[in-house]
């Protein structure tokens, strides 16, 4: 393999992994607070369409990012309200969010173009890769790791910060306590409902940002079904990452890498039908999930927050 090939595969891997990484760490934050949000796919796709529409009309990519995150916050707060205040079944609420989000995104995609026309095929502003001065001269890494767009660079800072926040700070401790054992957290004087709302909404904003990275950077523009199951892969990656933001990076690189290999093989004119190549990420998700579940089972380690998916009501004993 030539250096150029390695560089290009690594470059695509990181680019493709960024949206997955945002969605995964968003879901990790949510689940760490004990809320299972299966609406990731729906939030991502709404983030993608609203982000692109806003950027298209204002000609400002950052307005797109802001609007996408706002949309993500609104979507996630529906889930928070149903799960926290109304103690609804979280699995079904998340599915509802995905069905609703998919429909809403398709609807908006057909209405939010110029003068109520569809958005499909429109060209808007986008994030382009910027190489970092000084670091760009490093062989291989310079033209891959340090030749990305701003949203990708942001993850280089966000992930370590988030790890530190969750594991080493007092608010991070409260977050973990609420997810592991809300009764105890409540007794400690932590506001369980408030914290669950907060992290579900912040998580939703990050998930929507992942969607916006697709429509504003990775594959600029809007098409129906743009997210193509990435939200669900992110849900699987949370398990793969054992709820740890740093391990989420490994997962995102793994799945970004599959995308990169897929592109390479298609570009090289392989005889394998495209449909089979397109199955790879989904089949791989199942395989990875089976292996990690089996492995964690052997080590008798349960990575999931203790109270994941369970509503908390102070007046009721479990």
């Amino acid at each position, binding site marked *: 393999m030539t250096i150029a090939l390695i560089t290009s595969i690594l470059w695509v891997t990181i680019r493709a992994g960024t949206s997955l990484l945002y969605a995964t760490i968003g879901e990790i934050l949510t689940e760490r607070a004990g809320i299972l949000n299966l609406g990731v796919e729906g939030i991502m796709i709404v983030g993608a369409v609203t982000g692109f529409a806003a950027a298209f009309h204002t000609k400002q990519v950052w307005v797109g990012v802001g609007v996408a995150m706002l949309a993500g916050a609104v979507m996630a707060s529906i889930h928070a309200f149903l799960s926290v205040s109304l103690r609804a079944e979280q699995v079904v609420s998340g599915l509802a969010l995905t069905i609703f989000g998919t429909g809403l995104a398709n609807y908006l995609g057909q209405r939010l173009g110029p003068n109520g026309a569809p958005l499909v095929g429109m060209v808007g502003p986008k994030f382009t890769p910027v190489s970092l001065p000084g670091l760009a001269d490093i062989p291989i890494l310079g033209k891959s790791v340090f030749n990305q767009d701003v949203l990708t660079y942001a993850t280089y800072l966000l992930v370590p910060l988030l790890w530190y926040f969750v594991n080493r700070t007092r608010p991070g401790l409260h977050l973990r306590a609420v997810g592991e054992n809300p009764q105890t957290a409540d007794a400690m004087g932590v506001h369980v409902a408030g914290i669950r709302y907060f992290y579900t909404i912040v998580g939703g904003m990050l998930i929507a940002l992942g969607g916006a990275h697709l429509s504003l950077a990775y594959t600029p523009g809007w098409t129906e079904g743009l997210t193509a199951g990435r939200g669900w892969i992110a849900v699987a990656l949370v398990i793969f990452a054992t709820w740890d933001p740093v391990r989420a990076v490994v997962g995102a690189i793994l799945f970004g890498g599959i995308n990169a290999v897929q592109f390479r093989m298609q570009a090289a004119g392989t005889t394998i039908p495209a449909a089979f190549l397109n199955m790879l990420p*989904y089949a791989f998700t199942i395989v990875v999930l089976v292996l990690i579940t089996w492995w964690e089972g052997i080590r008798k380690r349960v990575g999931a927050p203790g109270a994941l998916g369970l509503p908390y009501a102070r007046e009721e004993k479990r």
Partner: protein
Amino acid sequence: MRIRLERRLKPSRAAGILVPLISLILALAFGGLILLATGANPLVTYKAMAVGAFGSRYAISETLVKAIPLILCGLGVAVAFRMRFWNIGAEGQLAMGGFAAAWVALFLPGLLPDLPPKWLLPLMIVAGMLAGAVWGLIPALLRAFVGVNEVITTLMMNYIAILWIEYLFYGPWRDPKGYGFPGTAPFPQEAWLPRYPGTRVHLGLVFAIVAAIVLWLVLTRTKWGYEVRVIGENPRAARYAGISLWRNFLLVMLVSGALAGLAGVGEVAGISHRLQKGLTVGYGYTAIIVAWMGQLNPWGVVLVGILLAGLLVGGDQIQITMRLPAAVALVLQGAILFFMLGGVLFNQYRLRVDVGLRRRPVRPTLPAEGGES
């Protein structure tokens, strides 16, 4: 003023009927806001949808056509959900059912020239149900023996099944005389499900109703139905009672997948008479709403299946007549589910509003309680 939730001693029957109805009304109001915000008139839109779905003999027949896969998949999802096994793979199980039925219709007569033609349809039905069941069994095995999260596996298998049938009708199975249309050659006439004259309503409707009756009997009258309910309500109690979890995971998913597979058979043998693009249009996902809104009860599933089929047909109609995206129907589906979820709370809880006329006794030695709802 304080608003509190109080647990009811018994689930409310009235709420069981009122909640889905009120949810539907609130969802329409909520959807109306979205329509308004994007410059469409909600009243005109809804009227067009209602007329498009139930306004004529033809409209009603088309609604029934779409109700068939929704009821069958909805029944399958409902059985699994009763056990809190989250099968969201009905879409893929339907696709595999369609695939197996198509294989039988297209290739079996060539392999077995002596096969009496009247056997073709029954074999297609068996093959389709088997294929759906097998596709559902894989996530069940993984859940039962490795503990893999079934939400993700059932969903990932949807994508794989859809790509698989697309590969077939775009690739090796594509009809060479089809002018490039993505679909297989048409099935022989013996492989067509009989239709009610003058409409596209096919025998699948009878299958759906029979399936609902059988399922209702099994769930309410047999020991197995009882086991499924116990596992759903309290898996730990089920284990102590000696109910095998893994056996029931497998059984439930065999039934669930077979029902979705049957829906796939109905679509290819009753409607398109070939395997073609447009087999997987989201019935498997809508089935989740059908099951939940029907409160996981077979009769509820039948009723809601017809109602939501009307919503889909109405959505297609406004796309044609008002040039509004049919996705409106999908938005409304999601919204209905939100309100249903919120509303189910009132089956189990009642709202108590303390206006503050009766003061609570002051306990000066204790710190003031937090203002949590």
